[in-house]
């Protein structure tokens, strides 16, 4: 065993081989240990038979057969390994990682309970969900999102300065939601209720990137986080729906109506707590669902492109104006948001170095048709405003359209150059990341400046 036969030189090759083995989801670290021992035994024997160390290595690896075959055989015995386990059974193997995930769990539960409690606190001051819509609607984001931000900041070990900034921003949100006396019917109340959660979500984003505020890659991670968070939240909501259905069914079977409990406790507390739980799930299990949002993007990009093109064609043929009522405005804004989401999530999952493919062209078609629609809508809104004067709703819709238009115009240009292989994909990614603060600033403007600007209409 000790003769100088060059076996030391094999160590890098063993390490590389191990690396390949460990990348297989079917093979655990203990399997890699066992197989490596086998490989070394085989090499030892071949060297003893007179082969050079490197020859022996090659022969031994060859004898073991392809890793594909090996993994397939392992997968037959250990099929459960291909199904990554969600929550609490995370097999990490190292005690340090285990304590860390347990501490995460405790922090998550604390934050979720905090969110659930805080949504009930106003009730102590005599406010109710049904009677005081003017209070609850704009404040909704303030009950749940600070707790999610707190969990993320805790997990990232954010610095004191940054925590101060986060607190200040949430305080600013609280001021915006409550300082202006908005009535139940005012448009500004609805606008604040929609825009404040968005503004606060970007504060959560700040907490998310708090370990490395300046890194652009982290901002893209936040975009991914947002998508996955949304997917998890919807899943939790679906589960919650089933829970509510059973609560109603079982209690009504014994003649007790659980309605008060469900509407006053289960739904609000569950919804608030789920915000943190979903965030924790994304953090804890980044790899499990293999990122659903980009998959959905792939599925729906062609479908949305088809619908938008069909709309444009029909619009051209029918020669009817767009009816820019309030609902229609919101609908078109949402449509553009969806298009942008489709773009953003395919960007988040794309290999930056891959050459342009058919999907990029499809995306170009999607963005261009969205642009065409946006221009049509924009013209209608401007026409309306010059005719009847402006309202907070129209101004907000107009501003959002302008912001999305600017983004999509430049995205279309970059996509065109990407398809023509003149710009690398990274330029598009950088543009989208750089644009994120614009949405945040706009949401804050709507929340803080619009109400006084329009006399609290």
């Amino acid at each position: 065993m000790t003769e100088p036969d060059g076996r030391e030189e094999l160590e890098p090759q063993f390490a590389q081989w191990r690396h390949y083995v460990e990348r297989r989801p079917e093979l655990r670290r203990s399997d890699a240990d066992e197989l490596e021992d086998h490989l070394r035994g085989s090499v030892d024997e071949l060297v003893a038979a007179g082969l050079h160390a490197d020859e022996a290595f090659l022969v031994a690896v060859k004898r073991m057969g392809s890793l594909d075959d090996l993994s397939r055989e392992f997968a037959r015995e250990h099929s459960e390994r291909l199904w990554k386990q969600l929550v609490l059974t995370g097999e990490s193997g190292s005690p340090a990682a285990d304590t860390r995930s347990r501490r995460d769990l405790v922090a998550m539960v604390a934050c979720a309970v905090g969110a659930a409690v805080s949504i009930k606190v106003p009730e102590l001051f005599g406010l109710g969900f049904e009677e005081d819509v003017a209070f609850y609607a704009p404040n909704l984001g303030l009950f749940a999102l600070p707790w999610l931000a707190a969990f993320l900041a805790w997990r990232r070990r954010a610095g004191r300065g940054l925590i101060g900034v986060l607190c200040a921003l949430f305080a600013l949100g609280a001021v915006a939601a409550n300082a202006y006396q908005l009535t139940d019917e005012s448009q500004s109340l609805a606008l604040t209720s929609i825009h404040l959660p968005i503004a606060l979500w970007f504060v959560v984003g700040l907490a998310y990137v708090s370990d490395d505020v300046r890194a652009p890659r982290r901002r893209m991670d936040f975009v991914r986080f947002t998508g996955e968070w949304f997917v998890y939240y919807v899943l939790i909501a679906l589960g919650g729906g089933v829970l509510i259905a059973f609560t109603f069914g079982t209690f009504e079977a014994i003649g007790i109506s659980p309605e008060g409990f469900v509407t006053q406790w289960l739904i609000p507390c569950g919804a608030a707590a789920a915000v943190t739980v979903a965030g924790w799930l994304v953090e804890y299990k980044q790899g499990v669902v293999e990122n659903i949002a980009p998959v959905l993007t792939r599925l729906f990009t062609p479908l949305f492109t088809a619908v938008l093109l069909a709309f444009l064609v029909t619009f051209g043929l029918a020669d009817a104006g767009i009816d820019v009522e309030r609902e229609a405005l919101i609908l078109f804004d949402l449509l553009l948001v969806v298009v942008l989401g489709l773009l953003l999530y395919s960007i988040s999952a794309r290999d930056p170095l891959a050459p342009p493919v058919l999907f990029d062209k499809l995306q170009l078609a999607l963005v261009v048709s969205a642009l065409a629609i946006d221009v049509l809508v924009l013209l209608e809104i401007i026409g309306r405003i010059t005719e009847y004067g402006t309202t907070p709703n129209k101004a907000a819709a107009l501003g959002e359209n302008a912001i999305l238009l600017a983004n999509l115009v430049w995205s279309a240009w970059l996509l065109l150059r990407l398809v023509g292989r003149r710009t690398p994909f990274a330029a598009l990614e950088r543009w989208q990341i750089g644009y994120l603060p614009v949405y945040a600033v706009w949401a804050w403007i709507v929340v803080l400046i619009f109400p006084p600007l329009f006399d609290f209409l």
Partner: protein
Amino acid sequence: MKVTKDLVAASATPMVLGILTEGDSYGYAILRRINELSGGELDWTEGLLYPLLHRLERLGHVEASWQSVAGERRRKYYRITDSGLAELAEQRRQWDTVVDALKEIWPGDRRPLLAFPLGGHA
């Protein structure tokens, strides 16, 4: 002559359990022992051996323990359990039935073998 894959697979469990009755062993040594016993006619692969060992471990027929050898290398040793011994006895009974039946119907020069006492195998 190579033994077919099906037959190798069918005889795999009694083969491994039988080898482990000779003493605790580890993957590579088990594979070598099989080679030795069959004169290289049984074509075993790692993809057959290790998942089989893991299945036997899951079923409780063998126990495994890690021991370190030659510095940082870790080796997984397998030891047969009581349930493994029972399984081996059961498999052996089945194999004996099969072998006996085959011997009955196969004519020719192997037939006289039946006349010999089986004591040597016990």
